[in-house]
Each structure stands twice: as C-alpha cells, then as structure tokens.
C-alpha cells in the first residue's frame, strides 16, 4: 500500500515511498534521514516536531506525508544558508537557549517564522509566539532572550546588506 511521495525539502526535491498513514515527522526522519526534526509527544502539544510548511510553522506529527506531497518543507537542517548557522540558530547558541537540544529544532522553526512576520516582537509577542513549544530543560528565560537577540542579529544583517 506504499506510494511514492515527492516534496521539496530544504530546497531539494525529495521522493520516497511510504504508506499514506506515514506521519510527516516519520517521513522526514526515517525515510529522508533528516533526523533534526524531533518527536516528543505525537499528539500535537510539545512542538518538538515543528517544521515550516510552505513557510508556516506546523506540527509535522499532525500531518500525513501524503498531504504534504507537492509542498515545500523546511526543517532545522535547512534554516542556515550554505551549511552555516542562521541568526536564530546563532542567537540560541549565544544566549544558552538550549540544554539537551531536543526541543530546539521546533523552537528554531517557530521563531524563524515569528521574526519573519514580526521583526521586533514585544516581550508578550515573543511569549505568545513560542507558547506552543514545550522545553523541559531551560525554563524558557534564555529562549526568550535568544529570540530578542535573533531579532538584533537579523536587523544587523539587513543593514550590512
């Protein structure tokens, strides 16, 4: 009952065969080998599995790979340009916004979209923006700091260009 499923992941067309019930999270991780997307609950609450779907953050554990066929997906592996780190990734590292790193890919994808839509979020907007992602390690304070720092880095990059 498997079928070929093609989608564009991190700018690269990818195809693999999978059953229609294959969750996008499993498809990315196990069929395409992109294990940066993590799975923490498989019921939509933790946010570890968040990827960008046509640019918008979504739970990859709550989508079937077949539904995603033909669309564009960006995972944590695709956030940085040319294998480098994106400003959001750099900011998380600079601000100690991660400990075990399991929740981190989900936060990074969420925050990347948040700052694209709102380059200077207020404290409350940051909290609201990351409110659907659980982290058991950091207590969030440094994550919030990292979001503001990332906003700075992005702004700097813009003026540099």
């Amino acid at each position, binding site marked *: 009952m498997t079928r070929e499923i093609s989608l564009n992941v991190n700018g690269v067309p990818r195809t693999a065969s999978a059953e229609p019930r294959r969750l996008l999270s499993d498809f990315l991780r196990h069929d395409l080998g992109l294990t940066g997307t993590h799975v923490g609950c498989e019921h*939509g609450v933790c946010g570890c599995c968040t990827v960008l779907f046509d640019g918008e953050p979504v739970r990859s*554990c709550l989508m079937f790979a077949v539904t995603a066929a033909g669309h564009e997906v960006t995972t944590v592996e695709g956030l940085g340009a040319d294998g480098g780190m994106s400003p959001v990734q750099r900011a998380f590292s600079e601000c100690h916004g991660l400990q075990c790193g399991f929740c981190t890919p989900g936060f990074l994808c969420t925050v990347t979209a948040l700052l694209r839509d709102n380059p200077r979020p207020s404290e409350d907007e940051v909290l609201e923006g990351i409110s659907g992602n659980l982290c058991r390690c950091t207590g969030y304070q440094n994550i919030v700091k990292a979001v503001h720092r990332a906003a700075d880095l992005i702004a700097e990059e813009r003026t540099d260009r």
Partner: protein
Amino acid sequence: MKPPPFDHHAPETLEEALDVLARTGEDAKVLAGGQSLIPLLNMRLAAPAHLVDINRVTALDTLEATAEGVRVGALARHARVERSEEAAGVLPLLRAALRQVAHPVVRNRGTVVGSLAHADPAAELPAVLALCEGTVEAASAGGRRTIPAAEFFAGPLESSLRPGELATSAFFPAPPARSGTAFAEVARRHGDYAMAGAAALVTLDEDQRVSSAKVAYLSVAATPLVLDLTEPLGPRPPVTCDWAAAAAYARDRLDTDEDIHASADYRRHLAGVLTERTLRAAAQEAL
C-alpha cells in the same frame, strides 16, 4: 503512537470529495487540518477505513466578510481567519475567540469548520457560532442543507452531520446594530482548552438600554450552551445593570460536570465570574 492503516483519498474538487464520501459512507472520516483527528488516530482512538483528505480542494479555501456576517470555507485555517481585518471588522468576537484556540502553530493548520465539525464542548468556536445563531452548510452527493447552530451540535464530539456529508462552510452572522460582544475564558495553561469560557452578546435599544443579552458557554455542558440573560438585565442602561445578579441567574441554570482540572462547583462559579466579566465588556462595547 502510530495511526492505524486507512485508505487515503485526496479529491481535488468538491464533487470528487462528495463522491468518495458517498461511496465510503460510515467508514470514512473527513481530514481537514488534522489537529484534532490525527492525535486521535495516533492514539488509535479512531480507526476509519477511509480518510477523505480535503486539503487539495482549494475551492473550499474561502473567507468572505460582508455586512451580513462572515462566511468561512472548510479549508480556511484558524490563522487566516484570525488575521483577517475584514472578518474582525464585521465580527470582532471571532478574532477574540480564535486567539484562545490552542497555540499559533496549531492555528496555522486547524480549520474553523473542522473545529465546528469536531464539536468539542470545550472548544471556543462552537460557542461563538451558537451565540451568533450561525449556520453550517453541509453538502453531500444527495444535495445541500443549511444546519442552524442550535441543531448542529448534537453532543460531546458529535455534530449532526450525516455519513456522506461534508461541511463546506460556516456562516457567522454579524451582530445587530448597537451590539457589543466579548469573549473570556479561564484555562489551566495559556492555550489549553478552557475550564470554562463565555462569549457574550449585548444589544441596546435606541435609548441605550439593554434590549437583549445572551451568553454562550464552553466547557460547561455537553454542547455549547446559550443562556438568554435579558430578563435579569433589561431594559436598563448598562450603568445601572446588576451584572452580578445576571451572573447568579446564569449560575442557577448551569449544570456543570467535574473533570481532573476543575470541580463542577468551581466550573459553575467560573462561568458566573465570566458571565459578569463578558457582559460588562460587551455592554461597554455596545455603547
């Protein structure tokens, strides 16, 4: 936690969708945003033989705001409706309620119509539809029908859609002139389903007295519950209204249940507090 096997159908037009639904009947489930259905599948609490995935039926991805109200197509995601200035202009309540639905990331995917069809008594949108006396458009291979909110919510997680039927859109009528609305809920964590919530609609007469006051509740009954609170309030100007009395009146009419987050009494108490808060705010907005 992996979903059980099913046959996947990915129609691209409404006709195709209705056709598969007609063929598969009771054995099929519609898949919209999947934000409620896929958790159930992953936990194997549901095992439909067929899944009719409507995500490619682009004709259903519509949102229309007119003076009469807001019509939301079956593929319009929460996020789109929430961001729409037009929709918020006609019915601010819709945005206020949507902001309490889950978290932004879930709203990127979940649909308004899916939320109605899911008929969770703890969900925000069914209460809004019920308060506004909105309707759901249902289509099947056999034809179409318009289902009023009061008939649409049949029980907890149970809508009155029949096998083979697809909800194609929902209509949220604009409130009458000189009306105000408000939404409030109390949830354990930000973004959780509420322990209790209330949406209020207050309409004033030409003399700025309350001519109608209604509150719809979530999480207090098996279906969204609407109470008419005009009697304890009207016809008086808002400044002289006894909101607490209206809340007490409402509390006396609520028969709440307990769950692990809230006792039945606390839930009823909360509903009372929220009644007062939303009525005040709605009246203020109506002025």
